[in-house]
């Protein structure tokens, strides 16, 4: 019996030892992704996941990382925090990833961050989570610097929503918002921002995701005869709510958050009913790097990168991969420390094309700082891992989604300062 145990113990130690030694230069290098490819955000999430995979493809074409191909290990969160945490845990514990891309909803990203990424010292970078809770958490030092995002926070979204309402001259706005960390945070901020700009709120109605009908919520929001509706929702439930809202006599003056900038949503509701809708979204700065991403995307997917989170997920993957390239040993802590080195403002500018990435790797090998300028422009993470981005407003003209306004990063910052002041 003891002999058997000894053999077992020896075997186990040998396996672990080999695995431990091999992990430093194991090929392929794995990058974890936790994204909602099914569930209420499945339509949006699938496109985001494909774009993330595309970024990995481009990097592999440029020779991969540290001479290895990169493997993109995707796990579905179904838009649920429990599923997301399990997926992240299995990626970290079983697949041994040192960096996680995701999730989309703040309500999923937050538990993943606090219960997986930070305790396991793994970098987490989100394309899409915009809740301000992360900023607060980072300020308290609870993220230990492992949290990054390539998407601007809620703060600018609610400010844009309020600005649109006030520019349109809406006086009485109803708010219907998704009952998640993201929706609640955004709606509450909107309430404050709109008051500063002179509008009034007739009602604030939260809704739970994945219900078949939202009649009761819509009827509650119709109280007080609002002249406009601020809708914070995702395409599938958003379509149900919008249809019931319009059917029951609600106004066509909609202000919608960026997740509803989706063809699925327009089609489900019907373009002809959405002509008075105005939306906002993060904009891509007017830079050649953005155009070149758009062209690459068009060539790969045979369509333009229209939809939430596509530009930002591409950059999230690229920045993480470059930070990996810069790390001597692939640990979450090293990657974390290098995230700002590959986006440093005094570095040499590099673009996310195959040639650009090859040049980036040469510079990294020479020990020089680089400045990644990608699909969302020149990223710059602040101390909390947040970025600022320009904003745009859009509407539907017939069936085409057209841009109606553009606000630079500075203009957005000035607007926020005015609202906070």
């Amino acid at each position: 019996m003891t002999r058997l145990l000894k053999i077992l113990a020896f075997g186990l130690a040998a396996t672990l030892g080999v695995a431990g030694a091999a992990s430093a230069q194991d090929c392929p290098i794995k990058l974890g992704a936790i994204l909602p490819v099914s569930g209420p955000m499945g339509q949006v999430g699938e496109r985001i996941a494909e774009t993330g995979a595309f970024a990995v493809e481009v990097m592999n074409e440029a020779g991969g990382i540290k001479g290895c191909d990169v493997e993109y290990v995707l796990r579905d969160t179904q838009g649920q925090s429990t599923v997301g945490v399990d997926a992240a845990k299995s990626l970290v514990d079983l697949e041994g990833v040192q960096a996680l891309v995701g999730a989309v909803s703040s309500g999923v990203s937050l538990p993943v961050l606090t219960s997986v990424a930070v305790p396991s010292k793994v970098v987490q970078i989100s394309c899409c989570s915009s809740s301000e809770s992360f900023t607060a958490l980072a300020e308290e030092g609870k993220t230990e610097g492992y949290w990054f995002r390539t998407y601007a926070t809620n703060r600018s979204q609610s400010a844009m929503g309020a600005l649109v309402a006030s520019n349109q001259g809406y006086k009485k706005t109803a708010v219907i918002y998704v009952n998640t960390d993201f929706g609640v945070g955004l709606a509450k901020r909107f309430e404050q921002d709109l008051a500063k700009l002179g509008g009034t709120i007739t009602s604030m109605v939260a809704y739970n995701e994945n219900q078949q009908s939202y009649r009761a919520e819509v009827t509650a929001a119709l109280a007080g005869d609002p002249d406009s509706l601020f809708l914070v929702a995702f395409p599938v439930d958003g379509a149900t709510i919008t249809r019931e809202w319009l059917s029951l006599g609600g106004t066509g003056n909609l202000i919608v958050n960026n997740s509803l900038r989706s063809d699925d949503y327009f089609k489900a509701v019907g373009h002809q009913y959405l002509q008075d809708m105005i939306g906002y979204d993060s904009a891509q700065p007017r830079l050649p790097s953005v155009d070149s991403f758009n062209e690459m995307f068009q060539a790969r997917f045979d369509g333009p990168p229209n939809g939430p989170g596509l530009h930002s997920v591409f950059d999230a993957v690229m920045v993480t991969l470059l930070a990996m390239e810069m790390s001597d040993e692939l640990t979450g802590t090293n990657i974390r420390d290098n995230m700002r080195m590959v986006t440093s403002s005094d570095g040499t500018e590099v673009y996310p094309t195959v040639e650009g990435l090859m040049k980036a790797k040469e510079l990294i090998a020479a020990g020089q700082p680089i400045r990644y300028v990608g699909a969302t422009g020149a990223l710059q993470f602040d101390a909390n891992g947040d970025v600022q981005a320009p904003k745009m407003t859009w509407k539907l003209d017939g069936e085409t989604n057209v841009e109606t306004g553009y606000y630079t990063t500075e203009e957005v910052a000035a607007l926020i300062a005015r609202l906070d002041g």
Partner: protein
Amino acid sequence: MFLQHLVDGILSGAIIALGAIGLSFTMKILRFANFSHSELLTWGAYFAVVFFAMAGVFGNPFAAPIAPFSFGWPLLVALVFSAVSTSVLALVLHRLVYRRLSRTAGHMTMVFASFGVALLLRNFVLLIFGADPIYYSTALQFAIRLPGGIRVMPDQVFLLGLTVVIVIALHLFMTRSRTGISMRAVSENPDLARVSGVNTDTIIAWVWVIGASGAAIAGVLYGLTVQLRPELGFALILPLFAAAILGGTGSLYGAVIGGLVVGISENLSVMVIPSTYKPAVPFLLILAVLYFRPEGLFGERNT
């Protein structure tokens, strides 16, 4: 606003009532809580999609609507088609699963089997039709304004009317026809019914057909006013059970009143509590009924 919420409640209650009738009957006559019943609503709704796809060969079913409704006569045919198909599905399930189990297995086994069947049914919908929402027609129907500022959609009024017709028809069936009377006999005492010469197998088949048809019609009409998702029925399971338990299992009018009470209380609840707690209302109703009147409002106390 109160009146509007009340009307909304009655309209959504009508769908719950239609679904709850079948659930209530199966609970009483087949003697187990059938968790797969709500999936029959989903299948009913998707069977109509199949029908429209086939009927589309002859032209768009929504092209010539009968004013003021959004649909034309093909919808009525679709209802029949879907009711028949769903009944066949229910009978197949009965034969493959429930009949076999009921011979040997206990009550809890049946309940868990129904859970399994529900999962299978839901995922088959996912497999065949995909997760994306489907619309019978994306044309939007606008509500008409009734006196008092109440807004209703004509389709929903049709739904309410159809529910009333079905309930009356079922009432006549249960009280006048020989099959209906036998059905009540089986629900009272299956052994006694059998020795009196009632063919219980036929009666049980009838229960499935009635339950599945009600579910199918509720599913199609629900799909008509909102959208079709694989979770359509699953999302209704609590309201359905609340309605069946509230009304008292086996009672036709109990299920109808139960459905209306659930629908109305869900809709009125948003006036007093935050709308995010609305899904908890059926839970509270189940708790309250089980506490104060376990046999349900119209149920008979088991002796």
